């Protein structure tokens, strides 16, 4: 017992837990439409805000969002960041842009990629549109949209971002 023992600095404890994950009834309605190439939000019956992607409730009011609202695939940049560090297993090469985008007709932003743009020119209020994958590749996922690219429309003033109708920006 007197002999010196090597300290134990770590043990391997593999854990495998399998789950059948479900998105939820509200998100499932959204995903079914995305598979058809349509972006749909859900409207809060109390405060009228339109959420995309919907998660089943208006987080502000705590009530179920039942009404579906078909949205445009045009959007406005609410905020963005330029990613310069490679992320392991991510096929996208830096530098690239992750942006908070608000689709026309929605009040809440979602996060997606931007491309076909000059990174240094990307700005808050910039108008963008979805670039979809070929239809045969569509699945129940937001990456049916490859990325958003800038379009030739006037910038949206900061105060107007998130308040555009589904018909778009006439600025």
């Amino acid at each position, binding site marked *: 017992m007197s002999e010196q023992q090597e300290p134990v600095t770590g043990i391997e*404890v593999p*854990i495998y837990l399998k789950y059948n994950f*479900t*998105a*939820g*009834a509200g998100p499932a309605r959204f995903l079914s439409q995305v598979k058809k190439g349509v972006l749909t939000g859900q409207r809060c019956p109390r405060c009228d805000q339109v959420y995309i992607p919907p998660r089943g409730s208006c987080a502000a009011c*705590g009530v179920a969002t039942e009404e579906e609202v078909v949205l445009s695939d045009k959007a406005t940049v609410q905020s963005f960041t330029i990613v310069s560090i490679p992320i392991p297993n991510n096929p996208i090469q830096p530098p690239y842009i992750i942006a908070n985008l608000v689709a026309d007709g929605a009040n809440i932003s979602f996060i997606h990629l931007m491309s076909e743009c000059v990174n240094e020119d990307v700005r808050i209020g910039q108008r963008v549109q979805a670039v979809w994958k070929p239809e045969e590749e569509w699945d129940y996922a937001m990456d049916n949209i490859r990325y958003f690219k800038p379009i030739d429309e006037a910038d949206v003033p900061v105060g107007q971002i998130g308040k555009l109708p589904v018909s778009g920006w006439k600025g």
Partner: protein
Amino acid sequence: MRDIAIVAFHQSRAVADAGACNEVEMIMPVLNEVYQQVGINNAQDVDFVCSGSCDYLQGAAFAFVAGVDALGAVPPIKESHVEMDAAWALYESILKLRMGHADSALVYGFGKSSPGELPVVLSQQLDPYYLAPQWIDTVSLAAMQARLMLDQGMLTERDMAEVVSRSRRNAMRNPAAQLAGDVSVEQVLAEETYLSPLRKADCCPVSDGAAAMIICTVDKAREWGVPYALITGIDHRIETHNLGMRDLTDSVSTRQAAEGAGVGAGAIDVAELYAPFSHQEIILSRALGLEGSTSVNPSGGVLAGNLMMASGLSRIGEVFKRVVSGEAERGVAHATSGPCLQHNLVTVVEKA
């Protein structure tokens, strides 16, 4: 010290699989029920909110944060969470009220256990070096506990079957129950063993669902003008995670918590015990010193439906319902957590 009143409680029906429902969609209807019971709109109308849940159950990181989407948290609210049964969220809320930091609180718990393999998921609550790596499931540990008691002559398989039979029959009057029916002791004993000596009927089912409660000061209850019951005692104790150091045939921590909560100060009309396995109801009844005059698990208990992270709160809610209806004057509710009744909370609920 300020008296604590329970003014509202609701539990969703325990179901084997809530299907496409996510956390928020499971919680919202239950919250709406308790809001209606006291006539408020949402969590803005209480001073504090505390929830109990465990992300391991549905296998979704930060699922408990998604739960907050059910509250209506704009403008910001005072909110907290325990990675435990919501009975402990109630405990935290009671401390908040007693300290005078809040006059009312909403407590809720939810669990969607169906997406995973619950007994194996729960193996990860064991100590991380010796037991969790072996993936020892909760049912096997409970079976070992039952075996100890049978071998020491502390109970018989018939005693266990009687617990099951009473649960199934009581659950026939519980609209939230998952398993109910006129099942005789003989029918239970005729079932083959599942994990010896346990039969499937000795084990609680896996259930999805949520429960919510509103508590407040007595002044607030009068202001709301709703019937209420008083929480006159609450205490919880935990035993070592080392199963080899525990006497698994007894529940020392339940007995100590019962003393702390003042269970012995009067007659007990009703007791709702969180016993996921039939033999554990016997251990708990003994530890609490219950006598024949006490109605045990009139709801059917968790053998009729076990909402992980909400069943403990539901036990307290079931006693509250019976005190407010006049069916009972004084009741005891018990909540448990961990393998083989490791951690136990005891609450005394009395007529106002």
